[in-house]
């Protein structure tokens, strides 16, 4: 085995690990509201979401090589790596991908520990951007498109992040308001049961859309790495094992649950009833589907959070915990730069050590960090059994108003 082959293997394993974190980080986007209202038992909800993510991942047969191409300058128009990166088995490109993925995973794990639903796509893009800046300088990043279509960091990442939660929130608020207008006069117990079915249906749709949108990103990264390493040449197709591995990784991650984030989304933001849950998930599903149909890239996390906030705004007398919302928005804003910093630092470490050892050191740092995060999470575990407990602000920020 050559150095490049081992580095390639490390990239593939790290990419699948990222896909796995992507899964549990986003379970809540689809299932938090159904779990919070009791429409589905927690374990059933994550199992359903996992299966639908698996199905969704297989449905996305579109080539996703353009995912990385939108933000960093390492590929030509067809999606194949630029020739200058192919020397030495594509080592320089593989190191950038590896460090970018590590940046994404580290940020995903940290936000998971804090129970913050941040965007996995932003974490991935941030990591890649940081590693590309470190490795290639500022010109390694596509900041802006050429003006013919939405492209670059601004067009594909920043603008959608600003616009999509607002759209989702507005749709969910209107949907909630309409629903409560229509069912005025119907007994609450009757509406709760009726809307549970709508909730399960709409949440399932979000899970399916999530599988098709997010698993693709990792498939694209792995295929790009395989092309750079000379193991694959076709830019129009993805190897079947890559698709299978990514689908399994994202659905296994989804099944694991990410209970901390589910809790924040389902209990932390708004106390949710099943009509609101249905309004929120319908808005999320509609925005995600409409966007992907119209080629408007966005983060499922931003959409889901916007919807849940919107449904709190749309119901008269519902309490929205704006302090929780503000913490989340703060996390969104620093996701990209924070993951970029990690990606860049990783690249410098890898480059300094150099060669095969450099890539291995970066990988070991990731493993050490992940183990540490896991041990920290055990101090205050959140699981299927306590995910729906009454919301309390963490001890450090416990003030009168946040308890009230």
């Amino acid at each position, binding site marked *: 085995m050559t150095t490049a082959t081992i580095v390639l293997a490390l990239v593939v394993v790290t990419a699948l690990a990222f896909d796995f974190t992507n899964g549990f980080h986003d379970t809540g986007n689809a299932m938090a509201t159904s779990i919070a209202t009791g429409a589905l038992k927690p374990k059933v909800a994550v199992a359903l979401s996992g299966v639908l993510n698996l199905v969704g991942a297989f449905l996305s047969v*579109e080539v996703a090589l353009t995912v990385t191409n939108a933000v960093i300058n390492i590929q030509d128009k067809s999606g194949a790596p630029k020739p200058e990166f192919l020397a030495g088995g594509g080592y320089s490109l593989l190191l950038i991908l590896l460090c970018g993925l590590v940046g994404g995973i580290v940020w995903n794990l940290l936000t998971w520990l804090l129970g913050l639903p941040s965007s996995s796509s932003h974490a991935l893009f941030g990591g890649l951007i940081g590693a590309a800046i470190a490795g290639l300088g500022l010109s390694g990043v596509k900041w802006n498109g050429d003006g013919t279509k939405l492209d670059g960091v601004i067009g594909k990442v920043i603008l959608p992040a600003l616009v999509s939660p607002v759209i989702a929130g507005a749709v969910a608020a*209107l949907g909630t308001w309409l*629903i409560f207008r229509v069912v005025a006069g119907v007994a609450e117990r009757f509406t709760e049961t*009726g809307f549970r079915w*709508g909730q399960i249906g709409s949440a399932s*749709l979000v899970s*399916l859309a999530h599988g098709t949108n997010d698993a693709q990103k990792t498939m694209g990264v792995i295929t790009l790495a395989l092309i750079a390493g000379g193991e694959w040449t076709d830019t129009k197709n993805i190897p079947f094992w890559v698709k299978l591995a990514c689908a399994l990784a994202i659905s296994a991650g989804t099944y694991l649950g990410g209970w901390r984030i589910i809790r924040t989304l389902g209990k932390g933001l708004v106390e949710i009833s099943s009509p609101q849950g249905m309004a929120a998930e319908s808005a999320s599903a509609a925005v995600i*589907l409409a966007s992907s149909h119209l080629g*408007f890239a966005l983060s499922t996390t931003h959409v889901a959070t916007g919807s849940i906030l919107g449904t709190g705004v749309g119901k008269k007398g519902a309490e929205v915990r704006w302090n929780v919302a503000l913490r989340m928005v703060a996390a969104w804003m620093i996701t990209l730069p924070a993951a970029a910093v990690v990606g860049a630092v990783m690249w410098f470490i890898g480059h300094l050590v150099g060669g095969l050892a450099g890539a291995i050191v970066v990988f070991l740092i990731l493993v050490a960090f992940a183990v540490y995060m896991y041990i920290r999470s055990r101090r205050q575990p959140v699981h299927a059994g306590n995910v729906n407990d009454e919301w309390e602000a963490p001890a450090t920020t416990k003030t009168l108003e946040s308890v009230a």
Partner: protein
Amino acid sequence: MNNLALALDGAWKVLLASLVLGAGLPMVFAFGVRSLALGAGGSAEVDHAKGQPIGNVLAAICFLVVLAGVALGITIVVASGFGRAVSFAHVFPTLVSK
């Protein structure tokens, strides 16, 4: 066109489609639930009125509309994965290759 104009151009289309599917369909679903309550009568409604059979018929129509909407949504996802798109050119959605 620059990125900002392109984003706003995409945004209002997404908003329009989402309003119809994401707020419109739940409203139809709500009408369905309301009609069911009308059909059931008694404790299902706050005023405890007697059940009206027409409510069940209305409810069935509402839920069918919602199901059709969901089927359309799934078709859009699946079709795009197989290199096809759902076209609304003939008002009724039809599958076309992209």
